[in-house]
């Protein structure tokens, strides 16, 4: 089993909705050394897969960033530091090292 963090971004549709676009970008624009340790995916609620994921994760609002099943950022786009903090709190030792490198390098 992969030890990567699972990050799900629940959206209306990142193409159609600017709030969803930048919630997704809060994850997709993370440095590559951090992204190498996470698996992230957008689930838009316009299709059955997205609806099922929303229900599975007990989503409450759109957009939401979910990390390892926890509803972490609900209708609040995180700062770079905030998302690193939440990833770090759930990270393997290897990812924690990469997150600290990202902090030092800045956004």
């Amino acid at each position: 089993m992969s030890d990567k963090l699972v990050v799900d971004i629940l959206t209306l549709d990142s193409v159609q909705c600017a709030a969803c676009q930048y919630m997704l970008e809060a994850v997709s624009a993370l440095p590559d050394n951090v992204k190498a340790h996470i698996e992230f995916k957008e689930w838009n609620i316009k299709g059955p897969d997205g609806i099922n994921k929303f229900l599975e994760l007990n989503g409450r609002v759109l957009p939401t960033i979910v990390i390892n099943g926890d509803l972490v950022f609900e209708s609040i786009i995180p700062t770079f530091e905030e998302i690193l903090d939440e990833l770090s709190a759930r990270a393997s030792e290897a990812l924690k090292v990469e997150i600290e490198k990202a902090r030092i390098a800045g956004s």
Partner: protein
Amino acid sequence: MGIQLLIDAYRGKKTPKAPWLPYAGVHCAYLIGEKADVYLQDPDLIAKGVLFAAERYKADGIPLVFDLNIEGMSMGCEAKWYPDNPPAITGHPLADKTLAEANLKIPTAKDGRWPVIVEAGKKVMAQKGDVALLGLICGPLTLASHLRGVKIFTDVVKNPALAKEIMDFCAQVCAESARIYRDIGCEIIAIVDPVASQIKPGTFAEFVTPACQPAIDVIHEAGLTSSFFICGDATKVMEEVCKIGTHGFAIDEQLNMNYVREMAIKYGRGFGGNLKLTLAMSLGILSPREDAIVSLAAGGLTGFTFAPG
């Protein structure tokens, strides 16, 4: 009746019935058998689609376009067109450059995508009859997101001077957009800032509220009606939305309509929206008819506009 009815509701007044405002957007393209990307680049098609949708849906008002990428693309932001959606900004010119380095200019009616929008607007104005035409401006924080990317949400906390510089620039762009819609003849002009629901109330008050004032001044000095459209779960910033200075506001399906109505009445604002765009109109999980009945009952007849969320 349609224009005045909608203006009265937008200004928070009692109305004999709730006006109806479909945010038809690129659905207008679908109605006339066109792809969104073709439609949005052809003033004749836009005019045809808007007029068709207004008549088909017996609307009291209708937006000219619902596309928050016009300003950004008119400043050179990279974007991708879609056949079934408005385009989406894909490149952020301020991601790694300052305003001065990027040499961004405030787009006028002659720049970028604006000539198509202006020509379409004039065609609609000439034929629309008693239907209010709405001009929708890309709000300052959404525009700042287009220009700077997601970094703007870190800047407002860690680098507020840079965030303020970008927001001040966006405020001037919004004001110019308001002048363009004013000159087209739009009766109502709304600042549409979906991203503004994704920040804390203090951040909203510090950055979004001041950046909206130049556009609001343009609208009100022309004697026109103003609104502020916000999307998402905006519950935490509703108080700030009510205080921003527009005649009214519009919200999406995620807010509690009773709470929103009470807030609007408290501040004397018009309010609208809240029809279940995804759950009912798009996905059909809820009955659109029953949802509409609930919305009309909750909205009441003081300052309420019946509209999608």
